[in-house]
């Protein structure tokens, strides 16, 4: 085994004593890995002072094992072998810190997701042994590190002026954080402005939007940049820089309305900003509240685009508004009486490969859009209550009135004699022109599972497609901010339960439907949750960052400048003249807050004089040595051979 080539100075003189802690994970690991055998093997690994096991290493007693060994001075490096580091690395780092150790003298071996859940028998035990041995190889050379402290601007940029963006902006501003709200259109209100009465409690969308928008416009801590978009992005948590420019053509038609007034379908018109042109915003955090797009049916999908009588639900909602003047009789749309209408659910949602057709870009919307069932039923109720002469049929796959008060809305629809019909994913209803003389322009035929699989024919005057939510058009932001996107193309949170409104990029948060379909209440909850994370991050005036940045060993550096050439974040590393042993010399120097920690510099240094703290090349070499070494175990079938350890 090769000894570390470059042990760091602070560690000199202190012999590495590694503690290895192996988790049973209540059988998750121990069902496939012989944990006690692994522990025995680890006791023979050079540098390992103790090796212990526990049912749940993450539990208090498990952590206590580690802390006690540290306190007693039995160990000074820690290796925990358990589940994925994403789950518990921070748990163990903080346990080490509580016991007075340095949390960065820690290495994690992933023997659940990458061993016990994918391999079985002897092979699993052997692989776990080698992985843990490799972790000890790295741990032996880990030096104490301190987190970087970066001053953070008490300022937030919120991108998107729908209810998510407005909710987050108000919460932040009420906590004393200055906020710049950037909205592409000249209006505040987003998706909710395209609604009328919100299910299930019947709030007036215009009132909700107006309430939030007025408070935003009056708030001294909030500046609104409407009709503007983010065009450049740079910096890091606490100190982001965003370029914001006017969107060409994004202005309200002159004379259409007045600043501060509500325009149905659009929102509250924002007074033009005094500065007008392109500006630069310097900010501590960014909240993404970019919203969703409504699915547009393909031409011919349920007769859409081919029949004027086929419309989408969002279009219908705007057309009928509050159903003013439509009391007591038959619903009239554009002068045409609607005696019978069919609402078809799951249009552009819950699409299944092999059954549904992909869009022009090869995408299928496999997700459920969450809000359409309740929205469709809400609309059906409004119509049936205002216009009892209009019959309403709902053709669905599953009724998903999941939320509080929503099942009651569904029951009410039944009471209102909305007729529900259920179709299978592979038996979509067919929309055709009605027979001449039928008195209805369209007919819908459906194999109805509620009627024992009989085929029903429904003559209708209108077909309404309950279209789903799609990810909004944010490709530019995804590109600029390097945002992670899920298989469903919505922005992807770090973890749905551990960190539901956070991204892997520190200081950037998710609010609302840019992440997944949500209703208004859920959107505001998500926005407030994002705001609370942002406020916590800014509360101290500084942000602590991981110390995994490049560091130059000035004794080895000869000032070739290769690292400066290779650096991917210009400015993070530069050549400087400095005094060493009384002589002025040119050496490389890193600005830690700008360093991305990517290591591009490491590979090119001819002198091996630069490394990423906590991820050094020598540590990788040590890990590879331990993986290939047969010191801890022989692979099954291998010729047994003793190796000098």
């Amino acid at each position: 085994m090769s000894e570390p080539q470059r042990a760091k100075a602070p560690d000199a003189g202190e012999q590495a004593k590694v503690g290895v802690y192996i988790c049973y994970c209540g059988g998750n690991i121990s069902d496939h890995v012989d944990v006690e055998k692994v522990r025995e093997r680890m006791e023979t690994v050079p540098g390992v002072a103790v090796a212990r096991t526990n049912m749940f290493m993450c539990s208090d007693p498990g952590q206590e094992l580690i802390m006690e060994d540290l306190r007693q001075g039995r160990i000074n490096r820690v290796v925990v072998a358990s589940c994925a580091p994403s789950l518990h690395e921070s748990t163990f780092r903080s346990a080490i810190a509580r016991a007075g150790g340095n949390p960065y003298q820690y290495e994690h071996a992933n023997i659940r997701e990458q061993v016990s859940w994918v391999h079985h028998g002897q092979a699993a035990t052997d692989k776990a042994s080698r992985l843990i041995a490799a972790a000890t190889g790295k741990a032996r050379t880990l030096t104490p590190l301190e987190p970087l402290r970066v001053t953070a601007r008490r300022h937030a940029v919120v991108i998107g002026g729908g209810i998510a963006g407005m909710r987050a902006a108000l919460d932040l501003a009420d906590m004393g954080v200055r906020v710049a709200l950037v909205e592409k259109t000249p209006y505040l209100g987003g998706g909710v402005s395209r609604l009328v009465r919100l299910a299930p409690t019947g709030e007036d969308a215009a009132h909700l939007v107006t309430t939030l928008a007025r408070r935003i416009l009056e708030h001294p801590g909030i500046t609104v940049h409407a009709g503007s978009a983010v065009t450049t992005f740079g910096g890091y948590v606490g100190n982001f820089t965003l370029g914001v420019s006017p969107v060409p053509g994004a202005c309200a038609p002159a004379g259409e309305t007045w600043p501060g007034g509500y325009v149905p379908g659009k929102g509250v018109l924002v007074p033009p900003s005094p500065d007008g042109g392109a500006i630069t915003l310097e900010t501590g955090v960014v909240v993404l509240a970019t919203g969703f797009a409504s699915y547009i049916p393909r031409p011919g999908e349920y007769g859409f685009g081919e029949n004027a009588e086929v419309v989408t639900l969002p279009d219908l909602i705007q057309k009928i508004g509050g159903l003013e003047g439509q009391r007591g009789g038959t619903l009239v749309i554009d002068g045409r009486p609607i005696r019978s209408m069919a609402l078809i659910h799951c249009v552009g949602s819950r699409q299944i490969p092999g059954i549904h057709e992909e869009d022009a870009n090869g995408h299928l919307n496999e997700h459920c859009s969450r809000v359409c069932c309740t929205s469709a039923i809400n609309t059906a109720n409004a119509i049936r209550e205002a216009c009892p002469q209009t019959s309403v049929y709902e053709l669905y796959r599953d009724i998903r009135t999941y939320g509080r008060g929503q099942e009651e809305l569904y029951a009410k629809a039944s009471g209102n004699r909305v007729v529900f019909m259920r179709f299978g994913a592979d038996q979509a209803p067919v929309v055709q022109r009605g027979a001449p003389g039928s008195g209805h322009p369209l007919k819908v035929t459906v194999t109805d599972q509620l009627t024992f699989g009989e085929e029903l024919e429904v003559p209708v005057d209108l077909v309404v497609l309950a279209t789903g939510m799609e990810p909004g058009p944010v490709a530019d932001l995804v590109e600029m901010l390097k945002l992670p996107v899920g298989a469903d193309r919505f922005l992807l949170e770090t973890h749905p339960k551990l960190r539901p409104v956070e991204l892997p990029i520190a200081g950037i948060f998710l609010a609302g439907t840019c992440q997944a379909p949500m209703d208004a209440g859920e959107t505001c909850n998500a926005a407030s949750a994002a705001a609370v994370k942002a406020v916590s991050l800014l509360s101290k005036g500084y942000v602590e960052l991981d110390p995994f940045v490049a560091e130059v060993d000035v004794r080895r550096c000869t000032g070739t400048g290769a690292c400066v050439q290779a650096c991917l974040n210009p400015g993070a590393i530069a050549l400087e003249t400095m005094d060493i042993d009384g002589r002025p010399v040119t050496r490389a120097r890193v600005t830690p807050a700008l360093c991305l920690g990517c290591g591009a510099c490491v590979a090119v240094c001819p002198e091996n004089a630069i490394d990423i703290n906590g991820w050094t090349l020598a540590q990788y070499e040590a890990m590879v040595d331990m993986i290939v070494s047969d010191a801890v175990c022989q692979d099954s079938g291998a010729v047994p051979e003793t190796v000098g350890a």
Partner: protein
Amino acid sequence: MGSQTGATAQDKILLLATESCAYPGADSVGQAHASYPANVYVLKVKAPVLFPEKFYLDCFRKGIGGIIIMSCGEECPYEGAYKAMAKRLDRVYELMKEEGLDIRRLRLTAICTVCNRAFLNEVNQMNQIVHELSPPVQAP
């Protein structure tokens, strides 16, 4: 230098998996309990651009049979890192040829956090390759 004995060491496959994409991708395969050969070892890296040419050649010398660099591809959080690394790999391939190493032993691929099928494909293919090829270093 560690031991290079035993007929098994050359079978080992190293995955250099990026912390933001491929490493959680490997975890996702685990969450799905999808089995793959146990000679595959995942090392977490911030960005594979860190490794100089020599690192790869040393790995083969030590007996690693195959290396898959599982990067984030175009989604790489470090702008320009992917390109810089791809360029470096061209030189690694040249050096491998000079040393008589089959260049199929080293692959660069992009694996996302939910790319379970792609992950399994890659490791199974590499496993087949290292089984077909004779060990990169001859056992003494």
